[in-house]
């Protein structure tokens, strides 16, 4: 019985660790901020900004995979200069995430990557809906089996060697 508790305690701890690590990963590398937050906070390093490509502002840039446009979100807008891979996802009136660096001096966002709007809510829901019920089901079965073995031992019902399992 105690091995059962140790095992499932371990599973619970592992689950909590995964959740914690997941949340930290999200905060550091996956979260996208709005243009308003970008202007206010002006963080350095690689940032992800999410907004709507304003119509009439999208112009293919001087180079082959370049473009310039304005991104709007939370009532504020920023100018983006994109230079990176194939910009097929880049269209006006589309909400997307740009990844790059912010230059507070020239107030220009140098983007090197464009991403589709992430639906982390759905991903989290799916993983919870997929894994948690399975875990609960398995836990319930193991608990019952442990209980049954104990019952059989207590009632001296199981005759080892006689009744073959």
């Amino acid at each position: 019985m105690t091995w059962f508790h140790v095992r499932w305690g371990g599973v619970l701890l592992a689950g909590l660790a995964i959740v914690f690590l997941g949340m930290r990963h999200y905060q550091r590398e996956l979260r996208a901020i709005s243009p308003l937050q970008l202007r206010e906070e002006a963080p350095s390093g690689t940032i992800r900004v999410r907004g709507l490509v304003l119509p009439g502002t999208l112009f293919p840039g001087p180079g082959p995979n370049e473009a310039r446009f304005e991104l709007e979100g939370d009532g504020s807008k920023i100018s983006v200069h994109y230079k990176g891979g194939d910009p097929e996802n880049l269209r006006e009136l589309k909400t997307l995430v740009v990844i790059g660096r912010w230059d507070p001096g020239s107030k220009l966002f140098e983007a090197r990557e464009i991403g589709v709007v992430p639906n982390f809510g759905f991903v989290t829901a799916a993983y919870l809906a997929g894994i948690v019920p399975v875990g609960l089901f398995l836990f319930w079965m193991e608990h019952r089996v442990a209980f049954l073995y104990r019952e059989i031992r207590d009632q001296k019902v199981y005759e080892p060697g006689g009744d073959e399992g």
Partner: protein
Amino acid sequence: MIKQMRRYEGWFGVAAGLCIVSGLYFGLVGSPADYYQGEVVRIMYVHVPLAYTAMLAYGALFSCSLWYLWKRDLIVDNMCQAAAGIGAFFTAVALITGSIWAKPTWNTWWAWDARLVSFAILLLILIGYLMLRTFTEEKERAARYAAVLAIVGGIDLPIIKFSVEWWRTLHQPLSISTRGLSIAKPMGIPLVFMIVGFSFLFFYMLAVRTQMLYLTHLLEAKKGRLLGEVHL
């Protein structure tokens, strides 16, 4: 056989845990988001293994049913019942995760896609199987009837899949493409890990559930005898 299950099940459990945790790592952190679907494609790492395992469960049910009709071993019958219960559970969860995946991808909770419909029918067959076992009075007869149902169902499932596929190619709206993602190499590795991990998990759960059913029947039978009556 029960003793062997008890001895070796732990290995399956550990293998399952390792594969699933690495699969989750590679899937969630180590692989890129899909170009068209974005982050939502990561649901594939939990939905597809569940679906595969559900089909594995039915395969186990089918083989064990044949085995039971051949050998009439009651432990094999317990395995059948265990596989059916686990299969129904995994099928239902696969359908739910599939639905959660469908909403952001196709903007609908349910689509009359061939695979989804076939899966729903699989769930109905498994639930029918479990109901049949519940409603049949004698244990031996229940085992026999259930085995026949599992075998007939198993032969029917490929036919059902074909007929639903043909039906959907007739009526499918052009916008929804179910194979909308090409599995790039970095996505294939976590997927394989998760599928293998879930398969190990299935065998582990099968061992646990078979023991649960066997011990329950053993306890019931012995209790009956101890009290002076004979239940069967």
